[in-house]
């Protein structure tokens, strides 16, 4: 069985929000209708987004580091938002594991948003239906697009390739290998939602230098220094080097 998902590498995410804008652009222009925005250039802008890049500071000054953290629907394997939906508008596709909302059936009761511990669902304040990441379901199967572009808009946009897309149930897929080899983890594992999306941890390239590595014991200069100087009058090529 297929379970499409994103794998997000926190080690290379630079927090540029290209995935956010690309997601918004693609998903506000599709046949499912616009994504609401109010006061986009005003004092109190608000709107519906499928994807947000958040920033956290880990540690205490001066030993802090900044972590950029893209957050979207995790397409849980056991999604708590689906069984609570009274109309069946919220559903998980059997064929590829994408969790979707049928905007024509949604009554806008917010119950699924209450049931999502990640805050991945946002109501559209104008269309009054619940919206969330679709993994660009209207893009990834589009035969009119070149095969290399049949990826979610956020993945296409990421300048550092921090976002990988693929089938996490296929052990040989790029995403499965990344999770396996690079310590991919799930968010809030305590709730048993089994998110399909995974995050790759930040890695430090630490160069450990021991004091004895700062001096070279086989330094040729020192070796030279230990050689007996040629006696004056001995034949030498340049008056320095002995035979």
């Amino acid at each position, binding site marked *: 069985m297929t379970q499409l998902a994103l794998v997000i590498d926190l080690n290379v995410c630079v927090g540029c*929000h290209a995935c*956010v804008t690309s997601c918004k652009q693609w998903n506000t222009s599709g046949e499912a209708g616009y994504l609401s925005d109010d*006061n986009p250039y005003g*004092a*109190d*802008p*608000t*709107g*519906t*987004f499928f994807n*947000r*890049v*958040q*920033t*956290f*500071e*880990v*540690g*205490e000054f001066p030993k802090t580091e900044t*972590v950029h*953290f893209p*957050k979207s629907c995790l397409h849980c394997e056991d999604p*708590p938002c*689906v*069984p*609570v*939906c*009274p*109309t*069946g508008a919220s559903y998980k596709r059997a064929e590829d594991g994408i969790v979707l909302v049928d905007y024509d*059936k*949604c*009554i*806008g*009761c*917010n*119950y699924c*948003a*209450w*049931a*999502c*511990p*990640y*805050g991945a669902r*946002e*109501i559209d*304040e104008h*269309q*009054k*239906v619940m919206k969330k990441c679709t993994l660009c379901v209207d893009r990834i199967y589009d035969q009119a697009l070149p095969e290399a572009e049949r990826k979610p808009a956020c993945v296409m946009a990421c300048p550092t390739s921090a976002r990988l897309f693929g089938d996490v149930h296929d052990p040989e897929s790029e995403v499965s290998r990344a999770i396996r080899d690079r310590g991919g*983890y799930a*968010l*809030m*594992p*305590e*709730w*048993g939602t089994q998110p399909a999306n995974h*995050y790759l*941890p*930040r890695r430090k390239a630490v160069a450990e230098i021991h004091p004895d590595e700062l001096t070279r014991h086989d330094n040729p200069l020192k070796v030279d220094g230990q050689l007996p100087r040629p006696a004056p009058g001995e034949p030498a090529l340049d008056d320095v080097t002995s035979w």
Partner: protein
Amino acid sequence: MRPAWSVILFTTLAGAGQGLFLALFAADLFARAPPDFAAAGAAVALGLLAAGLAASFFHLGHPERAWRSAAMWRTSWLSREVIVLPAFMAAVAVYGLTHALSYDRNISLLIGAAATVLCFALFVCTGMIYACLPFLQEWRTPLTVVNFIAFGCASGFTAAAALAAVRYPALAPRYALAALVLGGAAYLTRLASLARNARLRPKSTLATAIGIKHPKIVQIAQGAMGGSFNTREFFHGRPREVVRAARWAFLALVFPLPALLLAFAQNSFAALFAAFALQYAGLLAERWYFFAEAKHPQNLYYQAIA
């Protein structure tokens, strides 16, 4: 969580209507109240339920699609509630009619028994809507369902006492006594849930939310310059003093003050109606606090705007 007034009104009004029906049926079972009292009571109960139902529609973005919400009764407590509520209302209406038209007592008792089953089913559905969400730890307890049942019964019996003071005064003191007992029980279970929730430790932390093992993580930006649905729906947005005041208000209004009236003015309609009004106001505060107290784990992701 942000307290949703539509839901607060629905749960309190429907709860009172359900309790009122149970009070009528109890009198029917034991004391044989006159049929016109039962019919009038059923009409009032239906009115409360209908008002609650109307309030609940304001919670929906698309009320015209509300009929769809009966679909997923296999998995969703909300869907089950949507089915049980009209069934219960229909049963109460038929129950009232059998009394108004003076049908055979056995028929109305049979219908009343069916309505009682539906009544408790509705209580359980309403409570489980909240108690079934595992990560809203404040709600994830059988006490949630128990409190919905106990407060519904208490307010319904208080309403029945007020109604009886007008229509059938002989019953008023008995209803007042029952309302006292039920109100006291509801108060105790609510205190129990308050004590339980005060000792809760959140299972989710920022470390599990973003998967970075460090005790000190601070959010710098949440990915939006202004607010979003996530900042509006999951935060009550009131200062701590308001939440605390709501707790003290409901702790005073929901039982102690009405209890004085119920205990010492068991035959006066004005006093009994005041008891119901005070208790209902307390229930509004109680339900408001019920929402405000619940801390959704998604709030971990929405702690700073920058």
